[in-house]
């Protein structure tokens, strides 16, 4: 295993200490594993997100003005525990309640559910918004439902902006759910990733093959295919996304081309070029975009596409000021 680490068990604590040193504006509770904005905002709805580590900058990189109030990082690819989530809620609740933003994985869902019960017992009003945007997984009784992936960034940004403007808990939860409902993702990987604990790649992939329909936890995808040009890969991903959420000429979208950790930025721009061309053909407007590494899967070479069919509220909240390590504008 080739990694810039000291020991697999120490990665999370040391990374948290690095985050604390790099971003003095954030408060990092290394003991409880909570990254939060410095001070509690009285009267503001607080957004708390969390999930396994290994997806950086998600979630700690999105803590700050106009986005999350706190993030709870678990061990690599492991949901955080309820105690962290409760500690986070207690640290940032300003009396207006807390929105838990939860990616749809059994572990995340169960731990956040327990945390919500515990927080309620502490007198904190809690709402939960589930993110489940990955169309590679069918939402059926045959699965644990769709995975939460790239749309998390859209949900956190847009709901965070509304909370910053002073909206109440119900309204913030509602827009979070609306953004999720309007968003779809699909991902393709060219290589497996290696977790510090396991020390080897999750799967072997021949030099001329790719995994289609992967998640963000290093698992294999829905199917294995021969490697194809970027144009065809984008077409596959867009077909899956549009089959589930049709878009017509004039629709406005927010599009994210997200690197899974090991993909050079120049390739992400090639991919974005293909999407822009495909959408231009259809008359679909890419009103806003992100191209970069936002929701990663350690060192996996891969790319995920997320498309949100955005209404005017979402676009204006997207444009609102944000000041976090990984997303910043207007301030």
């Amino acid at each position, binding site marked *: 295993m080739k990694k810039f680490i000291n020991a697999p068990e120490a990665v999370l604590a040391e990374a948290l200490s690095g985050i604390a040193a790099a971003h003095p504006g954030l408060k990092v509770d290394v003991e409880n594993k909570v990254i939060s904005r410095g001070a509690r905002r009285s009267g503001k709805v607080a957004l708390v997100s969390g999930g396994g580590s290994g997806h950086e900058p998600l979630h700690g990189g999105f803590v700050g003005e106009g986005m999350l109030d706190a993030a709870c990082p*678990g061990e690599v690819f492991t949901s955080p525990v309820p105690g962290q989530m409760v500690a986070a809620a207690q640290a940032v609740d300003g009396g207006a309640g807390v929105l838990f933003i939860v990616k749809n994985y059994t*572990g995340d869902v169960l731990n956040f559910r*327990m945390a919500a019960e515990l927080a309620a017992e502490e007198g904190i009003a809690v709402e939960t918004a589930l993110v489940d945007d990955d169309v590679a997984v069918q939402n059926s009784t045959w699965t644990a439902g769709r995975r939460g992936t790239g749309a998390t960034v859209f949900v956190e940004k847009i709901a965070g902006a509304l909370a910053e403007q002073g909206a109440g808990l119900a309204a913030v939860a509602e827009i979070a759910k609306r953004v999720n409902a309007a968003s779809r993702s699909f991902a393709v990987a060219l290589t497996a990733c290696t977790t510090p604990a396991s020390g080897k790649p999750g799967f072997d992939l021949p030099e001329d093959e790719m995994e289609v329909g992967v998640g963000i936890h290093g698992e294999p995808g829905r199917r294995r295919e021969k490697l194809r040009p970027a144009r065809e890969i984008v077409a596959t991903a867009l077909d899956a996304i549009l089959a589930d959420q049709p878009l017509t000429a004039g629709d406005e979208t927010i599009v994210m081309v997200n690197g899974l950790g090991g993909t050079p930025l120049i390739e992400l721009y090639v991919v974005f070029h293909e999407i822009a061309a495909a959408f231009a053909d259809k008359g679909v407007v890419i009103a806003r975009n992100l191209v970069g590494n936002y929701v990663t899967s350690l060192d996996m070479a891969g790319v995920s596409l997320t498309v949100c069919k955005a209404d005017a509220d979402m676009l204006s909240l997207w444009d609102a000021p944000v000041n976090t390590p990984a997303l910043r504008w207007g301030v």
Partner: protein
Amino acid sequence: MDTDLARTWVQAIAAAVDQHKDHLTQLDSAIGDADHGTNMHRGFSAAVTALADYEPDTVGAVLVKTGTTLISTVGGASGPLYGGAFRAIGKALGTPTADTQQVAAALAAGLASIQKLGAAAPGDKTMIDAYAPALAAFQQQADAGADLDTAAVAAADAAEEGMRATTPMQARKGRASYLGARSIGHQDPGATSTALVFRTLAESLAASAESMGAR
């Protein structure tokens, strides 16, 4: 079963998980996210530490503390599922000692907790596919008037059979379900750790019976 035996059992799970950590992670790597071994190891090491200077009055208290520790240290799907199960088992054992029928009822409460939280059914390729047959075998022995040791051995054998039976299943719950048909042909990591939980129960009881006999 008494409080010492309960503690010994948890220690034995921790030792078994330590020994099989890489195997569990490897199984999880094939159809999950390669953390089940480290998750279980983190949780049961913490449980052993938590129990070290804990002197409870009831068998159940040992297991409730174990469950609470798992919930607060494991994370992932297995943390709440195992943690909730151990808490449910413990809550059903509010006495200093417990007999075969009492343990059978407690184990049933554990399974109920897992199913309530995770909503999985037998055949979904989860820990339930080891747990449910283990419980059935244990209950059958209890109903036949067997002693704890015998019931636990039957449960461990059934758990291991259930564990092996997950290999041809297609997962319908947990991360492995994302793989669809590609989950077929791999043994479920959670069923594998559940088999360890039942095997160590049988071993702990056997070791205790032996030391009794030797005395």
